[in-house]
């Protein structure tokens, strides 16, 4: 038999591949018969050639046509329900694995859904606003500074030179949280504080669209002292939304008339204002007027352009306009550009006026974390199900003997995956809104999004469901459906499927590396946070409170300062524009002509702090040369910091004393030099700065407290405050808290990494636990024999942990470079940062090793301490 010639195998395979079932057998028979005959008449070579020709000749519609598969649930519902029932029985039989799979999948699905909603929310900011494509923010960017608040003279330049701009409006939030007072019919006064308030130019309502309930948006803010209000706030203040014509008092100073009511702005908007008031009087405060180089980020200009205008030429024109429009003597170091509305929320470089921005990098990191967690859960699924092959082999074998084909078995296992994934999805979708409500601390805002109600989300969720099913189910179903029934029924599967182990190991390495990556990121973020809290700021921020002053009334400030200093538990009091380290800053240009007139004038930008004479002592800033300000107003003197000192080419502070520096066009004499202190958070390098003593432009009162009885002191301060500024609510913040608030974003990143690492560890540990119980059962006999031959429980534990230890180590080798790269680029956001330490990596490796040991320890110990006789005896 063996010597008989046969047609080439590859051609046979090709024929079997394309030919349908109903024609395969008899056609192959005919081909074979012809071949055998031709071998005798024409010889082997010709016979093979003819065979090939005939196979090609048979590529015809009737051989290619596929019969309808008998497996369509609604054509053969019995089969479908039978399989469903089997699936449920199998799930019950392997209850612990079902639980592990569902738990892991649900955990990662919740995380993924939350991230999915968060990212969707952030990417859709202001997309639904009509005319969103024509609204822009005007930015002024220099080579190393980025301003969203443009200098005041530029407003006029834009208004006169750009006919394409249909409407322009400044949003002004340069004020403290206002107190609104209403008087009801009975003469009772009620006070409200509301944060989401903005002062706007009347044209604001032509640019931004709201759903109006009452009032005319075109005229509502035309008159000074008019306001429009959101429905929810109207209801809160007046108990009704019918409030047009009613009045309220702003900070007990100005009477405002309500001229319109609109529906509350949506959740995803940069302009979440509930109260908009018309800007009256001066458009900007006096210190910004006519200044070509002063930026205040709390005044932002928005424009709406004509839909037919060409945005590129508009931008080009805008970029060059200041070369001709600005006075020659001004040293303009920035260019203007338009930023599309849709980019504003994703731009963290510029100050966000309504809602904090989020960078694309952060969103990318979130998505990556979601993908990691999902992959980790799918790996569990794949590993557990491929390990179950030894237990499921007989079932598959028998099904095949009874006529199931690979495709049927494949679909059966996919159905099993589908059922598990559906269960996980249901749980996750039910729990996600709860998590969203609790996750404010990580997301940075409340997201009251319900999944069920949003029809637009369901196609995404469906697509996501299919993806998870394929990711988790494809490989196990493929592997299980290929089982050879003969081998399965002879109980020989273990030998023939040993190869699958390498893939499983690869997946486990991936899982280990994901959790180690997250652990490393978490540890580095924690260290950096620690650093933020402990790094010296250059000034003393303990026991210091800051209060915003309501008015620049020189007499009252003087009076309250004296009143405070009566209290022995108050060490000192000072007034300044924004304290020591602050979120925002004031910037002016400076010019300095060195004494030896050979050198040219040095020009640049400098931060400016408006302070009083007690500023340096209250904040404990170190003076390296000269003297502190002596009086309340020493307007022609200034104190500079060391960075500015270096910038003007001097090394010794004493050399600078008495020299003249021009700041914002005015000449000042340098009377002192202070050691550098942090003017902003540690994100930024210390900039050049000048201190100018001018009580009239201060907004912050700093109070240094000593002594033990803090509450009593605070009560006294509060009392004095409200006495001096009647109708004003005393609100203070500890400087420590203010400094901590600079790092809220980083804190959130750290918490995100912590949570992600914990979830990844949980999923990984669950999977490992499931896997080890299967492996321990399979290696039962091996353990028995080892024990008979003298192995101790410890030896066996060591064998098992060594297997996984290598995988942990391999995972670490993959994780370390990725985590290093990711964290180095994260740390680059900060001017002051920690170096990456080896200890972090060692700790991450040890931690994941320990977690691995804990997950496998108990099961392994149980198997290892069994009586070997039970394992070896084979009945």
């Amino acid at each position: 038999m063996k010597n008989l010639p046969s047609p080439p195998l590859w051609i046979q395979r090709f024929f079997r591949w394309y030919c349908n079932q109903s024609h395969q057998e008899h056609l192959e028979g005919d081909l074979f018969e012809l071949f055998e005959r031709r071998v005798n008449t024409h010889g082997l070579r010709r016979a093979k050639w003819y065979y090939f020709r005939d196979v090609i000749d048979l590529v015809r519609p009737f051989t290619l046509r596929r019969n309808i598969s008998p497996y369509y649930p609604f054509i053969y519902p019995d089969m479908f329900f039978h399989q469903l029932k089997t699936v449920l029985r199998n799930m019950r039989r392997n209850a612990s694995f079902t639980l592990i799979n569902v738990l892991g999948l649900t955990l990662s699905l919740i995380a993924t859904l939350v991230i999915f909603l968060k990212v969707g929310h952030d990417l859709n900011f202001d997309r639904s606003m009509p005319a969103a494509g024509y609204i822009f923010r005007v930015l002024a960017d220099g080579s190393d500074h980025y301003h969203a608040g443009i200098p005041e003279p530029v407003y006029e330049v834009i208004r006169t030179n750009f006919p394409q701009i249909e409407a322009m409006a400044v949003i002004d939030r340069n004020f403290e949280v206002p107190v609104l007072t209403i008087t009801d019919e009975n003469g009772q006064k009620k006070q409200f504080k509301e944060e989401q308030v903005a002062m706007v130019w009347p044209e604001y309502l032509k640019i931004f669209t709201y759903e109006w309930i009452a009032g005319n948006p075109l005229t509502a803010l035309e008159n000074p002292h008019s306001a429009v209000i959101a429905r929810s706030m109207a209801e809160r203040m007046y108990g009704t939304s019918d409030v047009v014509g009613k009045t309220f008092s702003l900070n007990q100073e100005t009477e405002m008339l309500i001229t319109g009511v609109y529906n509350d702005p949506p959740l995803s908007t940069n302009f979440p204002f509930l109260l908009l008031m018309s800007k009256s009087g001066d458009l900007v405060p006096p210190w910004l007027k006519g200044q070509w180089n002063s930026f205040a980020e709390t005044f932002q200009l928005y424009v709406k352009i004509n839909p037919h205008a060409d945005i590129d030429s508009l931008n080009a024109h805008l970029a060059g306009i200041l070369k001709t429009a600005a006075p020659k003597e001004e040293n303009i170091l920035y260019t203007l550009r338009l930023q599309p509305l849709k980019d504003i929320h994703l731009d963290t470089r510029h100050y966000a006026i309504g809602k904090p921005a989020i960078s694309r990098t952060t969103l990318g990191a979130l998505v990556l974390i979601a993908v990691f967690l999902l992959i980790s859960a799918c790996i569990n699924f794949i590993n557990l199900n491929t390990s179950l092959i030894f237990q499921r082999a007989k079932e598959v074998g028998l099904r095949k003997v009874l006529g199931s084909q690979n495709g049927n078995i494949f679909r059966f296992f996919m159905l099993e995956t589908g059922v598990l994934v559906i269960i996980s999805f249901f749980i996750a979708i039910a729990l996600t809104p709860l998590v969203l409500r609790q996750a404010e601390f990580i997301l940075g805002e409340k997201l009251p999004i319900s999944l069920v109600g949003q029809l637009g989300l369901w196609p995404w969720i469906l697509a996501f469901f299919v993806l998870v099913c394929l990711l988790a189910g494809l490989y196990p179903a493929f592997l299980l459906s290929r089982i050879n029934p003969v081998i399965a029924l002879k109980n020989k599967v273990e030998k023939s499927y040993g190869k699958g182990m390498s893939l499983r190991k690869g997946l486990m390495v991936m899982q280990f590396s994901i959790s180690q990556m997250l652990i490393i990121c978490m540890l580095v973020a924690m260290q950096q946070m620690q650093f933020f809290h402990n790094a010296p700021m250059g000034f003393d921020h303990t026991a210091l409170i800051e209060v915003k002053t309501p008015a620049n009334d020189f007499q009252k400030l003087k009076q309250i300062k004296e009143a405070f200093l009566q209290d022995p538990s108050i060490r000192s009091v000072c007034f300044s524009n924004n304290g020591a380290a602050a979120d925002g800053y004031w910037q002016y240009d400076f010019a300095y002509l060195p004494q030896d007139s050979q050198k040219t004038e040095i020009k640049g930008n400098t931060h400016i702090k408006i302070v009083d004479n007690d500023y340096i002592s209250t904040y404990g800033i170190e003076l390296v040369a000269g003297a502190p300000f002596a009086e309340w107003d020493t307007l022609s003197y200034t104190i500079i910091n060391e960075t500015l000192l270096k910038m003007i080419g001097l090394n010794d502070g004493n050399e600078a004393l008495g020299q003249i520096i021009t700041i914002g066009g005015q000449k000042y004499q340098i009377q002192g030099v202070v050691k550098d202190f942090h003017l902003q958070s540690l994100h930024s390098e210390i900039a050049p700065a000048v201190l100018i003593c001018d009580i009239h432009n201060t907004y912050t009162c700093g109070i240094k407290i000593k002594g033990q009885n803090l509450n009593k002191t605070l009560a006294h301060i509060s009392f004095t405050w409200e006495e001096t500024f009647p109708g004003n609510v005393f609100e203070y913040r500890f400087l420590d808290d203010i400094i901590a608030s600079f790092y809220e974003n980083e804190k959130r990143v750290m918490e995100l990494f912590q949570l992600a690492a914990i979830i990844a560890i949980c999923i990984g540990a669950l999977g490992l636990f499931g896997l080890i119980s299967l492996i321990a059962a399979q290696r039962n006999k091996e353990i028995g024999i080892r024990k008979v031959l003298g192995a101790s429980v410890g030896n066996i534990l060591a064998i098992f942990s060594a297997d996984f230890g290598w995988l942990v180590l391999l995972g670490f080798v993959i994780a370390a470079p990725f985590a290093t790269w990711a964290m180095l680029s994260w740390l680059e956001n900060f001017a002051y940062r920690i170096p990456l330490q080896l200890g972090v990596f060692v700790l991450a490796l040890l931690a994941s090793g320990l977690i691995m040991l804990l997950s496998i320890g108990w099961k392994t110990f149980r198997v290892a301490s069994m009586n070997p006789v039970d394992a070896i005896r084979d009945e």
Partner: protein
Amino acid sequence: MHNYLGQFEELVLLTVALLGEEAYGVAIKDQLETHTGNSASIGALHAALDRMERKGFLVSTTGGTTAERGGRRKRYFSVTSLGKDALKEARTLRESLWENLPPHFAID
């Protein structure tokens, strides 16, 4: 027109009828070749068989397993009464045409 037979189909159908019980792929092919003197393409032959089976002119049954042909079973075809009608119709059509030919075409 649905039961119109093409020339090749008619030949194949006749051959199947001729072979009786033994009408399977290779046998039909051999018989066709002896009668026509031309070699028949196996693809064309089976395509015709499949087409006529779906039209209802033929039915097929699978034979028993033998050691021949590598153990692959044969598919035997037989002509149905519908097939027989179609053959008859084709023949009558042709004969009536012959009868109505002008005299100078008569071939004797």
